[in-house]
């Protein structure tokens, strides 16, 4: 993959996340993709990740993936971004996240996500339900 291919894949991944297009995400995941979150500290499969997204999306009225700073390397990318969410209560929260992605043949093969769960209360806001998780 060229640098442009990797950058394009990264943006398509985040656009799909933002637009809640689980079907597109499924196309972008390699069959053997591994997804790791620092908050949980364990590997998950693509299937597990995709199955949880619809419920996860219910947590917020809207999410946008902003201020994307993408740097590309030989077999992947690192993206630093700000996740902005509007809760159903109207509360606006933000999380600052870094993801290291690995790619092969136009698909994502690994995602490592780093965020600070200490910011979850501020993300959810005072009246929001507890079930909201970010990714």
């Amino acid at each position, binding site marked *: 993959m060229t640098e442009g291919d990797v950058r394009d894949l990264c943006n398509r991944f985040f656009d799909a996340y933002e637009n809640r297009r689980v079907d597109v995400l499924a196309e972008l995941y390699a069959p053997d993709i591994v997804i790791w979150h*620092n908050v949980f500290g364990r590997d998950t499969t693509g299937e597990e990740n995709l199955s949880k997204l619809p419920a996860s999306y219910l947590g917020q009225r809207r999410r946008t993936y902003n201020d994307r700073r993408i*740097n590309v*390397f030989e077999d992947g990318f*690192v993206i630093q971004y700000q996740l902005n969410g509007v809760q159903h209560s109207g509360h606006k929260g933000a999380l600052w996240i*870094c993801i*290291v992605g690995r790619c092969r043949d136009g698909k994502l093969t690994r995602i490592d996500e*780093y965020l*600070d*769960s200490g910011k979850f209360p501020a993300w959810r806001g005072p009246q929001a339900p507890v079930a909201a998780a970010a990714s």
Partner: protein
Amino acid sequence: MRKDSETLALCDRFFDAIEQGDYETVEACYAPEAVVWHSHDCLYQPRADNLAMLKSGMKTHKKMEYADRRIRIFEGGFVQQHRLFVTRDNGFVGQMDVCFVAYVRDGRLSRVYEYFDTGQREKFLGPVA
């Protein structure tokens, strides 16, 4: 022109120096304008403050180890994922997964972003007394 081997060497030199308590080398890795951003407060820490924090940590902790280093070089910098192990005075070994994104200028660290989870504070600092 990209100099991946030099960037890789800088990355290794920096983390090895912290592990070995070699403060002079740590300081030499920072450009004069270096700032360090942390995900828990989203603030840019000035060079002098960050170096003072590192110096104190290197003196205070029995051992610091950056394990499972996974490094990738990109145009203008690198990203390193690692698990930091810190052996504290009471023998407790704290650990934390960290993603370290560094932007490099003239062979030195110019801007650094560190991402970690304060929700796992106890795993890093030990049980609260």
